[in-house]
């Protein structure tokens, strides 16, 4: 059948370039392999030339694929499944990129794109390591190309093609029996981008994170190259800037994700130990361990074996996290894992194909890897750095176990184990001790010298920072304190210890930049990163321990408290429209929910917050976003008020608009004259007067208008009085009326007709669904900015180290010649 209106060229081109990327990276792998193993220099040169051309073609191919996919999405070619499933017409331009990484194929594409860039840079550098390192990277490119190939070999389907047409994806759907199916309304627009991803963080977080993931291959490839060529130590200096770069970017990418979670998810925090978060944290921890052993080796010759293991593992953990988050084994346990798209076996193979050969090679060469038999001195820097690396690694191992045990165990045995009662605490109670040890080590180790340190000089130098830290901790304890006592005194003590250790890390490293390095910032990258790490820990400790729920419910029926409900529940507070409600330090008033965004899919709830001493007022706009992608209902999107030292964070947990329940109550008509009485269920009302053309604070009619206002007083059984003033008016020869509502009594009044004999018709409705309200949750996060500042400082530190170490590496290389 000839379908009308399809633009098939981009898809065909796209698929052609996918195949080309696969073939060219395969050629590059083989050619680089041959070049690495070549004995004859002329042979090597020829292979290398071929390999570079092939890698160049791969580079161009992946960029072209990306460009074509972007073109398909931005031109709204909804005949393509990717555009149809992940975008729609109303999407802002800046989110078109997010559509690419919403899908599994797009994120693989992003990954392979970064490998192409990194590989290109390594070729550009052109050292003797080019051939073996690029063999590994090219092979990775082959594997990633298969992920987006979407071909069938027999029954096995290999990868998932981003250029699939909708009619190919849903081949059995009846609509495709028509040649003009594209003119049908359901093909005129796409399904849209998940509402939660329409956030600026989601434009930049995935590329940065994937650059972090992708760059872990560089130290891995260098380690493999060293083992392969039996040049075990030649690569460590050259690879150091790369591993630093990778750790810096990966760390930044992870925390950008945390910032997104903080801003648009409603669990009230930035980190939830979700499997997907853990899966990205683990490679970072192992990579940082590897960086430290690499530095040790460069300075002393110790720890080369460990460096190899760490770099291999950090890359393997990236692959493992890919398997975990994309294969669907996580199922219910993660909010943002991808689903099983029938690629489990391929993903598992992807992991195994790197894991097994790397470790086989490592153990084959193990005996030959140079090591120093003499042990490190306990007073040496390298000894304690090594301990630190070990702690990082074990922390990663424990997190991996905790994350993967349930899904994998249940998958294999069909068991029914589930997460612990308090998932976050099951991680926190372990990682707090990791944080303590690491922070202490970063504080004291800088003051140790390599090889051996004399006790006196070390004590003298460390004394001042220690006293300063002790002072700060005590002052903090007195003036502020950490209020987290839910988990008992032991854990609270651990938090204090961690606080001391983190401040120590900040102070000691800052002091070291002055005292140890004479303020030479160029070479202080390591210390700056440690300061950032310490600051981040301080921010995490204060913001999560002193996080406060402001919206504790003070109203409502009295509930039987059981021990558990004390902790979590009762955090929602109902605000009735226009009624100031007690919310801790504030009076909160729900003003209205009238404003929406341009597309009309977001409603903003305006909540005025006023300090009880009236010293400050501000407005929060927590909002509800209508879900896209065929999902019913709304997503609640938080709003926060930022201060330098705290955030007030709010989101809607329940709004009456959300239900849009049918109001079944009917208006009842009454014919009355002045001074008549109407009874309702909770009292009566009296028509006091009928005022022509009223002009008061509510209505502004002019003498030339035709308007009548009924002035009514409502008397409730409780003895309270309310005024209601419905209006009847004529505009453009048409009778209209304005309702008036007495929310407190749930009645609506309308002045609907003017009758003969000075009588009027009033309509009264009693309803139990009249009062507009929202239920809110409001938190206060103190000092969360310290965390973000810490991350920025840490990233700057990594950046400085990259520059410093790559210059150092080059100078060393020159000296050797």
């Amino acid at each position, binding site marked *: 059948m000839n379908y009308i209106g399809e633009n098939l060229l981009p898809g065909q081109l796209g698929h052609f370039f996918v195949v080309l990327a696969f073939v060219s990276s395969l050629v590059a792998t083989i050619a680089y392999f041959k070049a690495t193993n070549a004995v004859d220099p002329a042979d090597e040169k020829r292979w290398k030339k071929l390999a570079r051309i092939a890698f160049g073609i791969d580079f161009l191919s992946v960029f072209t694929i990306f460009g074509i996919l972007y073109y398909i999405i931005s031109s709204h070619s909804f005949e393509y499944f990717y555009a149809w499933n992940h975008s729609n017409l109303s999407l802002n331009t800046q989110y078109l990129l997010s559509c690419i990484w919403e899908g599994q194929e797009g994120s693989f594409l992003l990954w392979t794109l970064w490998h192409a860039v990194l590989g290109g840079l390594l070729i550009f550098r052109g050292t003797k390591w080019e051939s073996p390192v690029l063999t590994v990277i090219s092979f990775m490119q082959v594997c990633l190309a298969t992920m987006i190939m979407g071909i069938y070999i027999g029954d096995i389907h290999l990868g998932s093609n981003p250029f699939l047409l909708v009619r190919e994806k849903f081949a059995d759907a009846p609509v495709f029996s028509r040649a003009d199916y594209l003119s049908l309304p359901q093909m005129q627009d796409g399904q849209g981008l998940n509402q939660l991803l329409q956030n600026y963080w989601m434009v930049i977080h995935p590329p940065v994170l994937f650059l972090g993931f992708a760059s872990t291959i560089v130290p891995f490839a260098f380690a493999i190259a060293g083992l392969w060529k039996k040049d075990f130590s030649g690569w460590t200096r050259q690879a150091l800037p790369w591993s630093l770069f990778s750790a810096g970017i990966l760390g930044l990418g992870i925390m950008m994700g945390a910032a997104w979670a903080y801003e648009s998810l409603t669990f009230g925090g930035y980190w939830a130990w979700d499997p997907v978060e853990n899966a990205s944290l683990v490679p970072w921890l192992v990579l940082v361990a590897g960086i430290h052993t690499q530095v040790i080796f460069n300075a002393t010759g110790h720890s080369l074996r460990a460096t190899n293991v760490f770099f291999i593992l950090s890359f393997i953990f990236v692959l493992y996290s890919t398997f975990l988050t994309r294969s669907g084994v996580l199922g219910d346990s993660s909010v943002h894992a991808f689903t099983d798209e029938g690629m489990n076996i391929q993903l598992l193979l992807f992991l195994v194909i790197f894991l097994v050969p790397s470790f086989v090679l490592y153990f084959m060469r193990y005996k030959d890897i140079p090591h120093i038999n003499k042990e490190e001195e306990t007073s040496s820097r390298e000894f304690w750095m090594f301990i630190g690396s070990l702690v990082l690694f074990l922390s990663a191992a424990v997190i991996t176990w905790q994350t993967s045990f349930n899904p994998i165990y249940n998958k294999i045995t069909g068991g*029914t184990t589930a997460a612990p009662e308090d998932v976050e605490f099951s991680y926190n109670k372990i990682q707090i001790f990791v944080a303590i040890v690491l922070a202490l080590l970063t504080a004291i180790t800088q003051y140790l010298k390599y090889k051996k340190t004399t006790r006196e000089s070390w004590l003298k130098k460390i004394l001042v920072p220690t006293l300063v830290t002790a002072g700060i901790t005590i002052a903090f304890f007195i003036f502020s304190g950490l209020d987290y006592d839910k988990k008992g005194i032991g854990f609270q003590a651990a938090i204090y210890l961690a606080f001391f250790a983190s401040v120590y890390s900040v102070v000691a490293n800052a002091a070291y930049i002055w005292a140890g390095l004479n303020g030479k910032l160029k070479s202080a990258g390591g210390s700056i990163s440690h300061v950032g790490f310490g600051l981040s820990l301080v921010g995490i400790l204060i913001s999560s321990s002193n996080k406060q729920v402001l919206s504790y419910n003070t109203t409502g029926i009295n509930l039987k408290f059981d021990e*558990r409900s004390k902790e979590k529940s009762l955090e929602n507070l109902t605000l009735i429209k226009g009624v100031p409600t007690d919310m801790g330090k504030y009076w909160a008033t729900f003003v209205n929910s009238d404003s929406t965004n341009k597309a009309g899919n977001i409603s903003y709830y305006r909540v005025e917050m006023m300090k009880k001493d009236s010293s400050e007022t501000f407005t929060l706009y927590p909002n509800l976003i209508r879900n896209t992608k065929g999902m019913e209902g709304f997503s609640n999107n938080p709003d926060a008020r930022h201060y330098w030292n705290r955030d007030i964070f709010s989101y809607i947990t329940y709004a009456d608009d959300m239900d849009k329940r049918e109001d079944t109550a009917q208006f009842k008509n009454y014919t009355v004259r002045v001074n008549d009485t109407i009874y309702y269920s909770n009292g009566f009302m009296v028509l006091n007067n009928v005022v022509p053309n009223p002009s008061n604070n509510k209505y502004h009619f002019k003498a030339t208008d035709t308007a009548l206002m009924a002035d009514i007083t409502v008397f409730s059984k409780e003895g309270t009085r309310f005024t209601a003033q419905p209006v009847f008016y004529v505009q453009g020869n048409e009778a209209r009326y304005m309702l008036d509502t007495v929310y407190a009594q749930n009645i609506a009044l309308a002045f609907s007709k003017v009758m003969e004999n000075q009588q009027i018709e009033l309509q009264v409705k009693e309803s139990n669904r009249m009062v507009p309200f929202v239920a809110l949750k409001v938190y206060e996060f103190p000092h969360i900015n310290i965390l973000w500042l810490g991350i920025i400082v840490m990233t700057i530190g990594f950046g400085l180290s990259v520059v410093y170490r790559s210059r150092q590496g080059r100078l060393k290389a020159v000296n050797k010649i």
Partner: protein
Amino acid sequence: MKKTHIIILIFIAIAIAVLISFMGDLTTYDTVASAREKEGKFVHLIARLDKTKPVEYDAIKNPNYMRFIAIDTLGHSTEVIYHNSKPTDFEKSERLVLKGSMKDGRFEADEMLMKCPSKYKDDVEANKKNLSSN
């Protein structure tokens, strides 16, 4: 034996101890009947909302109290109390994972996960439905 080796062994011992304690904290997925047997113990109850019975929630009276009947795949049902706000589209949910414990014949849920007919994860299928309708 080297110091480093001793330290590594100590660390590994700590790690194992920590993991054993973690394994002790693990809970289970349960049905209504098996949750009843473990009264007072924290479990993950997998059930669905009984749509024939009313869901009791009035945010004006108390936004932190919700009561409904859940029914599991074996047909057993239980009353559930959830001290939190009612999630959007609760009535449309197809499956519930209730975290909490049985208490006096009622299930006290601390946390609740809903599976809706079309969540993000299953969007392809939902989208397919959109395609075939109208």
